């Protein structure tokens, strides 16, 4: 055994359990995608089932499920990009301007805390606050003659509830990455701009925001890579028979057709469609970023 292998063997050994995990739980399922092209039956297995080509993809487009899923997914994404994406940046910009260290630490702790709270708890708290009749918010609204608001069951509120819960949970935590980027900005830039008579508004515009540009682009690319996943848990927990028309997205649809109805092949086909669109989006946005002179993710 030569010197390299003597040194490398223990290292490969350290990697091995992780490698097995990736092969078994990440790469074998990728091979398993092939069941989207066969009429998969659990009894016959992959090799014994009949090849049906693009049958399930045609079914997806033909049955009209596709348009509803796409519309709901894109609308939620649009709201998310417009309102949720800028929220952590705003929080970071605000925290960056705080000069009282103790205040900053306390506010950070408070704003990070919701990140540790599960969707089940968040949805549960919302239900309790807005319960018709007994919920605190609706009691007050009714007292003022404004209520009650059927927040959880009226479909017109679904998207906004989803968005606001996202902001409540993630805006503070998401700021960490931007704060990190802000701490890397050269403080002499601020000093120089002060000499030139710039006020604090101008400093934010001309120094702080440009300093964040790279991170914002990277976060945006990563965001677009997930344009097809909105987070199964959150939407699933908010979903009920009354808001189904606006809340059904690819992920919940896959779960229901696949696991509840046992239609494995169809549901895998929908999943593959979703993954491919996601992959194309990352590739496309990454290229765009590089063309605009940014670094990109890969």
């Amino acid at each position, binding site marked *: 055994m030569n010197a390299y292998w003597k040194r490398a063997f223990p290292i490969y050994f350290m990697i091995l359990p*992780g490698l097995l995990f990736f092969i078994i739980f990440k790469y074998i399922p990728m091979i398993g995608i092939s069941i989207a092209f066969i009429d998969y039956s659990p009894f016959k297995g992959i090799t014994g089932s009949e090849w049906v080509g693009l049958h399930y993809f045609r079914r997806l487009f033909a049955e009209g499920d596709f348009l509803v899923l796409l519309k709901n997914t894109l609308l939620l994404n649009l709201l998310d990009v417009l309102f949720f994406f800028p929220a952590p940046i705003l929080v970071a910009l605000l925290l960056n301007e705080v000069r009282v260290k103790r205040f900053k630490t306390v506010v950070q702790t408070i704003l990070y805390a919701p990140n540790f709270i599960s969707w089940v708890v968040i949805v549960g708290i919302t239900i309790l606050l807005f319960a018709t009749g007994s919920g605190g918010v609706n009691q007050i609204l009714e007292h003022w003659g404004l209520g009650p608001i059927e927040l959880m069951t009226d479909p017109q509120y679904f998207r906004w509830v989803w968005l606001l819960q996202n902001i409540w949970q993630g805006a503070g935590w998401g700021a960490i990455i931007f704060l990190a980027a802000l701490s890397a900005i050269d403080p002499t830039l601020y000093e120089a701009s002060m000499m030139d008579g710039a006020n604090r508004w101008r400093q934010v515009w001309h120094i702080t925001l440009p300093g964040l540009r790279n991170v914002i682009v990277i976060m945006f690319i990563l965001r677009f890579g997930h344009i097809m996943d909105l987070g199964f848990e959150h939407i699933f927990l908010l979903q009920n028979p009354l808001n189904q028309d606006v809340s059904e997205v690819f992920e919940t649809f896959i779960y229901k057709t696949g696991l509840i109805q046992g239609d494995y092949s169809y549901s895998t086909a929908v999943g593959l469609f979703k993954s491919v669109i996601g992959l194309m989006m990352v590739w496309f946005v990454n290229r765009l970023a590089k063309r605009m002179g940014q670094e990109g993710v890969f």
Partner: protein
Amino acid sequence: MRHEKGLDRLFTILVYSMLLLASALAIFPLFYVLSVSFSTEFEYLTRGFFVIPKQFTLDGYMYLLAHPGFTSAFRNAVIISAVGTLLNIVLTSLMAYGLSKRWLKFRDSLNFMVFFTLLFSGGMIPTYLVVRSLHLLDSFWAIWLSTAIAPFNVIVMRSFFQSMPSEIDESARIDGSGEWRLFLSIIVPLSKPVIATFTLFYLVTNWNTYFSAILYLNDADLMPLQVFLRQMLVEDDPTISNASNVMYKYTPAAKMAAIILTALPLLVIFPFLQKHFNKGVMLGSVKG
């Protein structure tokens, strides 16, 4: 502090008031839940919003602690989180450390193999079929193994290990220490803040796990806390669940107490580790 001019003064006032407002909005729902958990149903139904309950009671908590469904779900959540997090952190740090060795052959391919899973995945059903064919359904192993490593965490941790000075490596080798010895007695102690941060992240994921549980566990005895909580909160709301009986099974205080007992463990731990986040999270995650 120098006297600020008009515009700068406005700026400062705006910054502080917006942050105060945001903090109030972040913390208020939790305060409300806490106070209702100590209240009686009568007070909740009649008083609307309140911060301090007039009739303080522990009934909600007593009810839960005597409820076999809740105690079993809590125990399951503890087991899932303890074993799961240990497995997560050991496998992730070993792999990340191994992949940080620049001289390692096949390193680029292995790194790409990890990275690619962030871009593309087999999806829910093929993963479910793998777990099923391994006969892991209805056992905690389904959750432990199928979520053993979060790829993104490997990448961030690897960047951290890479940023350590290579002299550590060399001097240890000159002293005759093997790779395991180097990792366990030098690298791990030096990486405590990072390991602590990621342990917390994994702990949060495990404690809050809901999706894997409804996917892989059907046996009611294995139900973890989040699944139990959903039954208690969402399915107990007749307007949402279409339940035929319009009676609530659980009192508001019991529901709020369950929320507190579910959320509190993590909320208590996290401030102690907070100082590491800023460093731990930024390392390498800006440029994966």
